[in-house]
Every structure is written in C-alpha cells, then in structure tokens.
C-alpha cells in the first residue's frame, strides 16, 4: 500500500476513529482488576446450652410430577426461601421455576408457588425459550435478591444459557429478565448449580459450568445489575462441573466439584491463591462421587461440611461429612439417605441428588435435595447437633 493511499482523508479519518475507540475502551478497562474474596463465613455464637436438633420434611404441595435442582436463600427476616424447577418431566415445556418459604421457628412451609415461567422469560427476553432449568438465588451487595436460572432455546442442556431476574421484595415478585452472556458461540453451554461467593468490591461470584464442547467449571463475577464483570476457569477439558467454592481467606479458596471422568470416581478439588482468578490442576479427594453434585459450606473452624453421594455408581445414598480438605481426612457424621439400588426388588427410581446447603446467620444449617425426583426434601440441623456428632 503506497503512502499516498494511506494518507487520504478517508483513510486518516478511519484510523483516527479507530485509535480513539481503542483508547476509550482502554480507559474503561484500565481500572478493572480481580478483587479479593469477602469472608462470608458465619461467625455464630457457640451452641452453649442449645439442644441438638435435626429434622426432616418435604416441601409440601409439590404440584408437578417431577422436581429437581433445589436451592435456598435466607431472607432478611430470617425466613428461608427455596427454589427448584418442576414440571411433567425434566426438559418439558411446562417446567417452571417454583418457590416456597419456610418459617424456621415454626418449621412450616408455605405452599409452593410458581416463581417464573417459560412464557414470562420468552416475553421478557424477546426470544423463543424451549425449557427452564436449575435456579440459584444470589444476594447482591445492595441487598436485592437475584435469581439466576438456566434456560435453553434449542437442543439439550449442553446448549443452555443463564438468565437473571431481580426482586425488590425478597422473592414475592420479580422484575424483567436479562440474559447473561458467558460463552462466545451463540451464548450456548452455561449452567449453574453452586452457591455464590462474595468479593470485597461488592461484586458477586457464582460458580458456573460449561457443557457445550467440554465439561468444565468456572467462576462468573457479576455486579448487582447482573453485568458480567469477568470469568475465571477452574478446570478445563471434560471432567469437572458444578463447583462449590469455599474461601478460607481473602486470597485462598478450595473448590469441590462433581467428577465425570473415569475411575476412580471421586469428588475433585482445585485451589486458588489469588481470589479465584487462577486455579490449580484438579486433584481427586477421598470422597466417592458417582458423577453427582455435591454441596458444602466452610465452618468457622475452617473445616468443611460436605453433602455427597457416598458411592461410585449410584445416587442411592446421601451422606453428611466433615473434614479437612487439605489433609484429605473426612469423618462421616450422618447418613441422610441409604436405599441401595442393588437391594431394591422393584424398578422404582432411587435418587437422592443435587444437594444445596446453607448456614444461616444464627448458625443453623438448612439442606435441600432432590428425593427420587418426586419431592424436594428439606433437612434442618443446628450447630449443637453438628457439634454433638464431631
């Protein structure tokens, strides 16, 4: 290209506008950095004279044939709101996101209600939506309650995307949906399962996972408007999804993940020392894992309380354990469910899966999980009960 052609007015104008746009983008990006974790561990009072309590119930009046992927959030008034998806069957067009609220003092649930439907999402996003999936609530730094849930417009779960709705009344009503763009090919492939982590700058971290071309875990960072601020890859390849991220300090955390690879089938873990921006190669733990989701919280003494299927091939049991993830030493403290498939004479589906565990501000624990895909089972136990088992 000769200099005379380069120096035409048109050429110089295009170049100047290009350079100006690069500088503008650069000035926006210059201030971006990956923040440290905020320590969100519950620093509750010692249990003292508290009587140990553990209780089991089902979320009542489940009005759909199948339910799955429940999650929980503590509301500002101390109530516990649960979300799950339910319909004729997984992936059916009638699947909606459902919700119910527990009064933990009275141990009483409200009736299940529809929180969001496929039609509402399609109307809000101005696009065709085929089915809905996993919902996970988030509490933003401005205290608004968000609900992130999976949808897709074509194909299977591998072609999913994430949507966000925000409530100003603790989940009674929801605003217009927005889509979260998290992958480069038609925004396909992202799902969500694990509970949020918080960052010091007020942004929210959400463990997500990809299933379009591989199967790997990520941390998504977003602000309270649902704007995606960044992504970090926890694993690569095709083996580990549905991470639970457990910070131990502003810089350090471990993630526990469902493992889809070959034998030995174990929950896998990965470490970060820069607040989740980079992660170590994954390592197998000693916890068995039949390609199933796990749930965990970090206790205030640094140990991890984990809920997992203690099996290599079936989700026919659900177990509570406490341990030191670094030392790979785990103590089983309670078997929540155990119906070995091999011992069943009938052909009914046995499944205890997709646990979701939270610790509330007063130190109590609430767990929900899929019970044979027919009901959502809820387990409550207090700190005194946990301490009595250790």
């Amino acid at each position, binding site marked *: 290209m000769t200099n005379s052609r380069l120096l035409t007015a048109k050429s110089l104008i295009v170049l100047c506008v290009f350079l100006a746009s690069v500088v503008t983008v650069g000035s926006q990006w210059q201030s971006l950095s990956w923040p440290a974790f905020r320590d969100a561990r519950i620093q509750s009072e010692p249990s003292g004279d508290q009587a140990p309590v553990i209780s089991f119930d089902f979320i009542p009046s489940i009005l759909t044939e199948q339910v799955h992927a429940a999650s929980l959030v503590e509301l500002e008034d101390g109530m516990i709101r649960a979300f799950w998806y339910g319909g004729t069957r997984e992936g059916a067009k009638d699947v909606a996101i459902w919700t119910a609220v527990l009064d933990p003092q009275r141990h009483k649930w409200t009736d299940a209600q529809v929180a969001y439907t496929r039609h509402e999402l399609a109307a809000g996003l101005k696009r065709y939506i085929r089915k809905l999936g996993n919902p996970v609530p988030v509490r933003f730094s401005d205290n608004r309650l968000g609900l992130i849930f999976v949808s897709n417009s074509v194909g299977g779960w591998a072609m999913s995307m994430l949507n966000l709705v925000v409530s100003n009344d603790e989940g009674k009503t929801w605003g217009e949906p927005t889509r979260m763009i998290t992958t480069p090919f038609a925004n396909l492939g992202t799902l969500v399962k694990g509970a949020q982590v918080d960052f010091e700058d007020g942004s929210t971290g959400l463990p997500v996972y*990809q299933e379009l071309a591989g199967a790997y875990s990520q941390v998504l960072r977003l602000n309270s408007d649902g704007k995606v601020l*960044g992504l970090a890859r926890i694993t690569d390849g095709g083996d580990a999804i549905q991470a639970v991220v457990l910070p131990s300090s502003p810089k350090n955390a471990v993630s526990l993940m469902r493992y889809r690879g070959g034998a030995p089938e174990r929950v896998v873990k990965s470490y970060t020392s820069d607040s989740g921006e980079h992660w170590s190669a994954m390592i197998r733990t000693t916890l068995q894992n039949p390609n199933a989701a796990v749930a965990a919280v970090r206790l205030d003494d640094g140990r991890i309380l984990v809920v997992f299927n203690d099996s290599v091939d079936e989700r026919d049991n659900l177990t509570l354990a406490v341990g030191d993830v670094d030392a790979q030493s785990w103590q089983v403290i309670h078997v929540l469910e155990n119906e070995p498939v091999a011992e069943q004479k009938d052909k009914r589906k046995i499944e205890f899966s997709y646990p979701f565990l939270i610790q509330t501000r007063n130190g109590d624990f609430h767990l929900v999980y899929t019970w044979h895909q027919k009901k959502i089972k809820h387990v409550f136990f207090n700190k005194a009960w946990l301490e009595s088992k250790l």
Partner: protein
Amino acid sequence: MSLHDAIGLFGSLLVVLVLAFQILRRLKLSQTVRAWLLPVLVMVLVYSAQGAALLYVRGLLGDLSMTSLALLCAALWYQLFDQKLLKSEQAAPVFFTVAVVGLFFYPLALRYTMLDPYIAGFGSLVLLAGVLLVGLLLWFRGYLFALGLLTAGLLAYVFDLLESDNLWDYLFDGWLFLISIFVLLKTIGRCIYYKIRGIPAA
C-alpha cells in the same frame, strides 16, 4: 423494548431477509419487485403472530456481532439492488481474519487448556493491544472496510449496544466464524483448482 432487544431482533430480521431473498433470486424477479417485496416481508415477519418467526430465529442464533450485522446489510443490499457495497478484496480480509482468529479462539474458549481467550474480552489490555495491532495492520494494508468493521465493533462496545459485556461478541460471532471458514476453504479450493488446471487466478 430495550435497545439490546431491538438490535438483536434486527439481526434476526436480516438473517431471514437475506435467506428469503437468496431463495427469491431464483425467481429472477426485477429489482423493482424485490424492492417492493422488502417492506411486505418486513411487515409480515414483524407483525404476524407477534413476530414469532423473529423470536424463534433469535432464540436459535442468539445475537449477532456488529461485523455480522454489517455484512448482512451489505448482502441484503446486493440481493435487492444488484449492487455490491463492498468488493471481494474488501470482504476477503474480514473473512480471513475471523477464520484464522477463530481457529485458535473457539477451541480454547470452549474447552481446551486453562487459557481462555474469551475471558480477555471482559477487560484485558493484552487483548486490546492485539486489537490495536490488527487494526494498524489492516490500515497499513489499505483494508479500510475491515478496519471500519473493527472500529464499529469497538464503538458499539463503548456504547453498550449489544447484550454482551464481552468485546469479542461485538467483533465476531460463531456463525460468522463458520461462514468465514467456508469462504476460506472455498478460496483455498479455488486456488488449488486453478493451479492444477494451470489457469491464472482472476
């Protein structure tokens, strides 16, 4: 309707119109007929069944990049008025750049290794340096159309015109990558054919 939705649906509309007129070209309709057909098709697509066809297409394809939108506009113009808004030598660098970048970008971004280039689109100055380099190369080579598309993508990002918060999604998309690969393979195939036949390339 938000601006994001308007632009997203506009992209779906362009895709349907380009495909429709590609089919209609076989009927050898006159330019006048084609020009009158355009608003009729737009009205049908937008207003019938509350735009269900466009909503469906948007659900399938997602939202397109600024580069795709610009190329679709140029393609539609050609189909309506038989005028090429851009010559092959202007479009070729776009397809070539997208194809070459995409061949590295998509495997890494969708699965392989811990190096995910898509992450850089949320705020990496290294990516921006790369964009600057590519832009200067395009300018130096005189590929002003391609540079214009790159600039349009950057400006659209600055003004938040698309749903995405990632710069990559403004510059190109998966569908453009697939078309670019097709164009690249077709070009390579044609060159090999001419070489085998001993025909000088046009």
